[in-house]
């Protein structure tokens, strides 16, 4: 039996049986592997790191989209950096208030593969008339555009990937440009990995954002295919509006993880996570 073994952390690894190989190749930017696993369904792996599985992507996608979208009084214009799989896009487009979603993703090969192989997850979101795709680098787009957004969702790769394409998204320049692209009530959201295994990601994201934004909040979600329990989302804005509870109601179809109660609960961090940003000195970083 063929196995995919994720070696992102040398000391703790998960492996999944490759029950059917769907694609293995190299795009202009990264190694791409797509396979079927009996438990997780279709699995997308980029540069040997699990990105997305059919079975649990909804947890990530719902929490990345609905928490900020429902904490905003009228989100109309959304910028999605990364997210070429279309799953967060699908969730964002469920909101009646949303008029435009611009996706900036660098890797067209991955986008095309996901359009085909994750159709059950994104449900044709790529064909929505409110959607615009810009194939390119997130930082370059942020630097050059004059467009303004209510929400910027950074659905980039983890910081741990060797030579990963998303590293420019964790820079002061990118954060500064995000602050510039936001409308006054706007909000920025960045995923920041699994703090149990990689606390540096949360610490770095938090410190980068602190320089550009007055309000920063962290919330978590458990995505089983991401090793090491809950992952974090970091939320930044230049206003003091409370984001830790939904501000408005919207009839959202087919939700399996998000509820208004989950929204609030997700902001309650156990000390082992809260201490990463509150007591950085106490954090015994591992790798």
């Amino acid at each position, binding site marked *: 039996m063929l196995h995919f073994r994720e070696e992102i952390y040398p*000391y703790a690894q998960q492996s999944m049986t490759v029950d059917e190989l769907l694609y293995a190749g190299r795009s202009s930017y990264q190694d791409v592997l797509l396979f079927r696993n009996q438990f997780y369904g279709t699995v997308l792996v980029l540069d040997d790191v699990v990105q997305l599985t059919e079975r649990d992507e909804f947890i990530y996608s719902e929490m990345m989209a609905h928490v900020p979208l429902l904490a905003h009084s009228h989100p109309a214009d959304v910028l999605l950096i990364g997210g070429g799989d279309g799953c967060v896009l699908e969730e964002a487009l469920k909101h009646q208030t949303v008029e435009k979603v611009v996706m900036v993703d660098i890797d067209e090969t991955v986008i095309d593969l996901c359009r085909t192989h994750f159709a059950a997850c994104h449900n044709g979101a790529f064909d929505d008339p409110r959607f615009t795709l810009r194939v390119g680098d997130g930082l370059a787009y942020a630097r050059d555009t004059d467009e303004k957004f209510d929400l910027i969702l950074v659905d980039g790769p983890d910081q741990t990937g060797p030579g990963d394409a998303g590293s420019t998204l964790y820079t002061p320049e990118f954060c500064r440009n995000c602050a510039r692209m936001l409308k006054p009530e706007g909000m920025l959201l960045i995923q920041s990995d699994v703090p149990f295994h990689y606390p540096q990601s949360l610490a770095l994201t938090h410190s980068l954002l602190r320089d550009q934004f007055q309000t920063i909040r962290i919330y978590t979600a458990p995505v*089983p295919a991401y090793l090491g329990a809950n992952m974090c989302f970091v939320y930044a804005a230049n206003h003091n509006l409370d984001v830790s509870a939904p501000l408005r109601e919207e009839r959202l179809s087919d939700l399996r993880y998000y509820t208004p109660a989950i929204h609030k609960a997700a902001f309650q961090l156990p000390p082992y996570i809260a201490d990463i940003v509150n007591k950085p000195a106490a954090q015994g970083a591992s*790798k």
Partner: protein
Amino acid sequence: MASDEMFFTEEQTPNVRFSVRVREKLLARQTPYQLLEVYETEEFGKLMALDGKVMLTERDELYYHEMLTHPALATHPAPRRVLIIGGGDGGTAREVLRHPSVEEVIWGEIDEAVVEAAREFFPTVCAGVFEDARVKLRVLPGETVMANLTNEIDVILVDSTDPIGPAVPLFEAPFFTACRRALRKNGIYATQCGSPFYFRAEAQSVDRHLRAVFAEVRRYLGMMPSYPSGVWSYVMAGDEPLATPREEIERRYAERELRLSYYTPDIHFASAVIPPILQ
């Protein structure tokens, strides 16, 4: 890539495995009940496995033991007599004894080898509980320890292996009936209930059996990095309301001087919010 001999590997499902890099195998022993293994690992500290499943690692055992123990003990206004079934590593007893009102811990662990391994390899987990005068540990099955108890226990904590395999009787109605008999009127029962993603059917059956016996059932979740899916489910039950006012939980947490790695009053309430997929 390193060879497989350097890893402890758990088969979480037939299609998903979890491997931890190990420096040394410290113990491998077939006890009368199970295969007991202890490893020194690269990043998780020491690891104990039973029948090939990770039971605890030094690095994240606190999250599990705190969440099995404190939600139930904080829900009780003054827990004095606590009964532990299983939990031979001592971590649950350690957390119970953080509550100053506790006078006696009655404890049944079926497998003496687990207790011996804890004494030898996990001093920070058992943290002196075996020598504590309040602790009455007996090497007996949980059912036997409980057989003669009636209306005298404040909190029962079942810290067993999962609701699949040999521990199944601990998750069924006759055992729950015995628990209810052993508990005082406002007593609380709590147990771990496996991965909510991997053992959904088992959790549902536990829930059903509990509801047949107790008036109140409250499920909750916690993060557990070294366990399958990274999320763990727990459940508590009793005949009195289990939803405690926030001020009350906060007051008990402060008065009992709980300074912990995972459990806080905020987590107490947030952990009981169950997403639709797990309902």
